[in-house]
């Protein structure tokens, strides 16, 4: 454990395992805060990219870390990576929401996956920021739109790979499929995205010709 001359802990230099141990043992909030700062973006981005709504992403993010805090003593095994454990909790919470939402949509809703957009349903105070971002980077926007239109299973694999940097073995374990299935989903996701980009480019060419 790294300490300064005055025997105060330099939290940012500690690895996850040491920070978790400190928080677990002493309830040291600063240790947890460093952990949260270190990983919040990838956890939140994954949740957000899967549900496509800021308010829902906020709830799932909070639910995830509430579980992390309350289950830390009971469930977390220090042998494993803390962040992998957190990712699993976040993934399960996200999938639970999507399943519930699907059941609800199947019966009641007229909306489809075509309505889905990362920024479309942002709260009002975020809308201006989102629109600015849209204008600044149209390519990024279209990418996110296309990803939002992927089937859930394919989007899941793409996001787990991108945000959580998981191997296909880990993705396969997390999603309860074989490695080949996970790889197949990734392949279909790329093929679908390629089609969407081609279609988009084709439309642009059509508009340009008019």
């Amino acid at each position: 454990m790294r300490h300064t001359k005055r025997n105060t802990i330099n939290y940012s230099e500690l690895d996850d395992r040491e920070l978790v141990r400190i928080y677990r043992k002493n309830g040291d909030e600063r240790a947890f805060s460093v952990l949260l700062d270190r990983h919040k973006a990838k956890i939140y981005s994954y949740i957000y990219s899967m549900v496509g709504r800021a308010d829902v992403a906020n709830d799932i993010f909070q639910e995830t870390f509430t579980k992390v805090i309350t289950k830390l003593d009971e469930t977390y095994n220090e042998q494993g990576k803390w962040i992998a454990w957190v990712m699993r909790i976040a993934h399960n919470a996200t999938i639970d929401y999507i399943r519930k939402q699907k059941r609800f949509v199947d019966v009641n809703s007229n909306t489809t996956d075509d309505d889905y957009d990362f920024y479309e349903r942002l709260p009002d105070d975020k809308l201006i920021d989102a629109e600015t971002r849209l204008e600044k980077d149209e390519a990024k926007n279209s990418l996110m739109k296309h990803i939002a239109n992927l089937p859930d299973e394919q989007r899941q694999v793409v996001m787990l790979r991108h945000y959580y940097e998981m191997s296909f073995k880990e993705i396969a374990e997390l999603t309860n499929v074989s490695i080949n299935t996970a790889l197949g989903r990734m392949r279909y996701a790329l093929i679908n995205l390629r089609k969407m980009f081609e279609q988009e480019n084709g439309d642009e060419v059509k508009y340009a010709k008019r």
Partner: protein
Amino acid sequence: MQNVDELCIKYLMDELDPSEKILVEKKMREDPNVLIEIESLRSTLKKLDALPFKNPPGDVVDRVCQIARERKVNATKPIPLMNSFGSNARYWGAAAAIVLSFSVGTYFLFSNNSQPANLNAAANTEVTTQKSNQANSNVQPWVDHNNILYIQANNTSAGNSSLASQAATSSTDSVFMQSMKKLTPLNGTMLNAQKPLDLHLASDKQE
């Protein structure tokens, strides 16, 4: 053998072992369609790098920190011993129940089996049984009219009750029972006598 599509995506995702990698690269050189397919997917995959990372709103982070702080308050309270015993308590309970039931079962099993064995032993080995019945009393050996040696504390009462029960089981008459009651113990020197021993009845002693 895996098909080309599987090999392509595995190659792209770096999920092949070196020999398979060489095989795919060879196919890419031989078949331009494979090369085009892989490069096309690679190009699409590269676009994913542009996916942004997004931070959660500050108020959400604050709420999470608040929850973490509340856990801290709980953590500073002394943890009851049972908590440290924790989730293992049910396993300890189950183990105790198994051990207890095993012990009780074993006890009944052996107690039932040993009873007939004792009865048989009592019936077959008179001397041994009588010895065990009078472990804490004064041992005074004596013989009956058939010159059978008995060793027991109260020569008349205990010995006779034992013999009486034996007599009852062998359907001897009451005269025999009465005569047995009149038997008196002999001193130790008589035990060493080689000639047949006389009966000495308590009430009919003849000088």
